[in-house]
């Protein structure tokens, strides 16, 4: 039991150190807004209203991120899951991609802060 515990805590330590080193690598000057515009505005629009340049020939309209009602109906955890694992993971369209291969958790959280700003604080 003891040695299992020791192995477990060593493992946890390793994971913590690893995630710290990942955190330390975060790109300087990067913002939720710049990430959102590069990756998400392709479909969701430069203003987040759902009318991105890629929105015209797909069957499901990208969510309007300025719609306070819809956005308030979702917790940060819901948003995190949808962004990291894609629309399918929250029973939505697969046209909403999974971004786990492109964005780390810290970047996703920056984007969520930005989403909260554009939906509900009148910011852009």
């Amino acid at each position: 039991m003891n040695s299992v515990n020791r192995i477990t805590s060593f493992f946890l330590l390793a994971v913590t150190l690893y995630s710290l080193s990942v955190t330390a690598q975060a790109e300087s000057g990067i913002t939720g807004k710049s990430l959102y515009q590069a990756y998400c505005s392709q479909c969701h629009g430069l203003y987040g209203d759902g009318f991105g340049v890629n929105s015209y020939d797909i069957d499901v309209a990208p969510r309007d991120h300025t719609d306070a009602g819809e956005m308030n109906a979702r917790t940060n955890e819901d948003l995190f899951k949808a962004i990291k694992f894609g629309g399918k993971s929250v029973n939505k369209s697969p046209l909403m991609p999974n971004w786990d291969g492109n964005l780390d958790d810290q970047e996703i959280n920056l984007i969520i802060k930005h989403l909260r700003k554009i939906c509900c604080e009148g910011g852009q």
Partner: protein
Amino acid sequence: MHYPRYNTLKRTVTFSLFLFFAVSLSAAESADGKQLLMDSCSNCHQIDMPNKASLTLQEKINRKGPPLYFAGHKYQQAWLENWLQHPRRITPSGGNYWANAVVVTDEGDEIDENKLTAHIAVNQQQAIAITQYLLTLKPFPDLIREGEYTPGKVPRMLAAKDFRKFKGCVACHRDEEGFGGVTGPELYTAMKRLTPEYIASYIRNPTAWEPRSLMPNSHLNDAPIYKLMNYLNIIVEDLP
């Protein structure tokens, strides 16, 4: 490694190609290719392997054209030689940072055609020299599985549905002229432009090629990747 017979064949082909070029193209011409690239193209294209592994988002946004330092894995020789002499648009939003050419209108976001510029063209001799040099650029050999893809049959309707609806590729890529997303390169020409090994590898893991690729990683296994490629094989036949 996976296809020993193919590899022997390839070695023979490579060797005959080598003999061919040894007589038809002097080393000086390939050096010319590099010089031309440095003089006329390096302003917009990364030609030399970057000396760090990462690419920041800001660097990606600032790029004026796609990177060419892995061109040797990426392009088909015939297409490259021809396109350099007769360039035409490949990415409807311009091929550098997509938002540069996009304006917000009351109807939604649109491409402002005035912001798109024509690509510089070179003459035949220059195109041959440039291609000769570019095809030597083959970093990341681990990402390429030589000869991995053998074309197969797939019913067109189903394949189109897969590409558009289930895999969502059409959101960012056109699979026919005028239909599909505009931020990714058109894919109805992909089988003419790109090597099958590169296509498979890029779909498998976009950020392995470019850390800030704007394409998501759909975590596809070989079978669904080859199915998508079979569709690319069908649509390339529609070209005039």
